[in-house]
């Protein structure tokens, strides 16, 4: 059991079995939070719910949805708002890392990847924004990626979806500014999660999801708007963005 906190947070997590989402859920559970988990694998969600209860969550429920389906995604938001009678923090964490080569030759695949990594989070955030605007508080936190900061030959379908999502969040933040709703754009670098399990992950830029989760909770409470995690990616990406095209095009990035 975690330390019971005054007014423990009501947290909704979309894509709850993703590596980063799991680590964030753990930390909210330790703080005695109430959680609603949205995902599509019932066994994984039930296991996660048991885990979070042991870790101290005061309430855990889950909602089954395939977030690639726009209608199911929208309904999941309504279900989450109902389940906890309102939400203080929503984390939108689902996504996939597409195979760039395949996306170049398989149009349907490319379109489905854009749908999952851009369209689906947009639909969820719109539904959340409607709910949050009424209560005039809360945080919408969305996992984008450092890959969204500049299009690179090795990964630009993913980069385009995440970059589009960053731009979307920028606009949403503008819209919600007056209502006091906080919009957080989380840009992780290389994180050891199931999504990246097929990559060699020995380099010193790789970090565990626990580290990223810690940064996310800090950014939620300080109402930060864009979070690079770990911090050094902010500088790496500043450099990558600043490279003139003549130089950039010669790299293998």
């Amino acid at each position, binding site marked *: *059991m*975690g*330390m019971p906190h005054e007014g423990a947070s009501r947290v909704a997590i979309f894509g709850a*079995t993703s590596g980063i989402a799991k680590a964030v859920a753990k930390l909210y559970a*330790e703080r005695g939070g109430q959680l609603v988990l949205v995902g599509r694998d019932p*066994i*994984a969600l039930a*296991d*996660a719910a*048991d*885990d979070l209860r*042991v*870790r*101290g969550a005061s309430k855990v429920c889950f909602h089954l949805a395939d977030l690639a389906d726009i209608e199911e995604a929208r309904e999941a938001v309504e279900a989450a708002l109902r389940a906890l009678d309102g939400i203080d923090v929503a984390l939108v964490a689902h996504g996939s890392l597409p195979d760039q080569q395949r996306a170049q030759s398989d149009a349907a695949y490319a379109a489905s990847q854009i749908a999952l990594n851009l369209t689906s989070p947009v639909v969820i955030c719109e539904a959340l924004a409607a709910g949050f605007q009424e209560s005039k508080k809360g945080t919408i936190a969305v996992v984008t990626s450092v890959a969204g900061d500049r299009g690179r030959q090795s990964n630009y379908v993913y980069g385009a979806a995440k970059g589009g999502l960053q731009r979307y969040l920028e606009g949403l933040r503008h819209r919600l500014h007056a209502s006091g709703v906080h919009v957080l754009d989380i840009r992780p670098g290389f994180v*050891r999660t*199931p999504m990246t*399990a*097929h*990559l*060699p*992950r*020995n380099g*010193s830029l790789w970090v*565990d999801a*626990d*580290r990223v989760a*810690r940064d996310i909770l800090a950014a939620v409470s300080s109402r930060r708007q864009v979070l690079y995690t770990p911090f050094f990616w902010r500088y790496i990406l500043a450099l990558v963005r600043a490279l003139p095209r003549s130089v950039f095009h010669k790299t293998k990035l």
Partner: protein
Amino acid sequence: MSIEQVYSAWGRGRHASASHKAIAPRSVFDAIRAFSHQRRNVLAYGRGRSYGDVCLNPGGLLIDCSGLDRFVSFDRESGVLECEAGVSLGDILRVCCRSEPDGSAWFLPVTPGTRFVTVGGAVANDVHGKNHHGFGTFGRHILSFDLARSDGSLLTCSPDENPDLFAATIGGLGLTGLIVRVRLQLRRVPGTALQVRDDRFNSLSDFFALADDAQDDWEYTAAWIDCLAAGSRSGRGIFSRARHHPGGHAVPPPLLPRKSIPFTPPMSLVGGLSLRAFNALYWRKLGIRTTRTATASYEPFFYPLDAVGAWNRLYGPSGFHQFQCAVPTRTARDAVADMLKAISMAGEGSMLAVLKTFGALPSPGLLSFPMEGATLALDFPARGDTTHRLMRRLEEITRSAGGRIYPAKDSMMTAEAFAEGYPRLQEFLRQVDPATSSGFARRVDLLPAACESGAYGNAT
């Protein structure tokens, strides 16, 4: 889907890292399914906190258990915890071991010197802690575990159910199957903070007298030995003892180290001058006093090295070797003295030499390491032949003293030393899962180098 990636043990260097094919199951269900499809040459990998090749399987497959990190249940009345095998001890401390208002708490019954190990690894190596004289090994506190076997079965093992497999799996180095879930009995402590007392001692005889004196009233004991002290000073050190402070609260330590060594220096920073300086400073830790007492968190007492993440990088790209032996009471004093002499003659030093006594409580595992007597743990930067010669010498002393070497720390043990040190090996072999193997098992001839499916005994 498997991928090729470098997996390392904590000793790093060529002796403790290799490229492996690996599968990283995301759930117990996935893990069981993945393991049941294997016919040969597979090993579970937790967090790579053993030092040599006991957690590695060069040329074979690893099942990376980092995704098996969920708690299943914790009963606050009885202290019974059920969790998946990849949960770390640090996680248990945070989740289950918080002081209640009166200071009392559930606590790990046994903890090794780092909290970043998995429960599965702690079972498979039957780890011990500074309270061995009162609590025995980690395995003594295991109520049961679920073990997947490559024939597709999932067996619950406890002292009553599949007892042979239970005894073989505790300390079984991952060679009896894949541990997926563990049920552990936590213990009740009156406070999570510790009363700690340090005493300087000048000889090994003084050490054994202190250990004798402390063992009834102090549940945790261990000593640091100044292994650079030669001649009449040989055997000097600092004896530390601790016990739970009733009503004392300690905040659970963080899941991640506070500071980290960010990269590997091109050569070892441990050795020569730094080693001398460290040991000289440590000897002066108590200033002019000969004894010191304090009440503090358990973190610096149990996990001093966990404060610095990736401290093993300080040894450079070649890494380091650990050596830990246990020797029986009757030969302990002389054997330890001989080892200290051998180290000093070799001109090598250990950054941290730790000496402690083991109590009489029997270990439940067929291959468990602790035996009643004393245990000495040392680390040496990997410097090729000189290091190898010294470690051979230490092995000889251990063998002639009737002792054994700890597989979890080992990277050099010979097959003869293993066979002599672990007399229940034949019994163990009957429980081996024919799909498993490891670098260690092949090196010490525990398993044949190239094993075909079903080539050796299978009891189930």
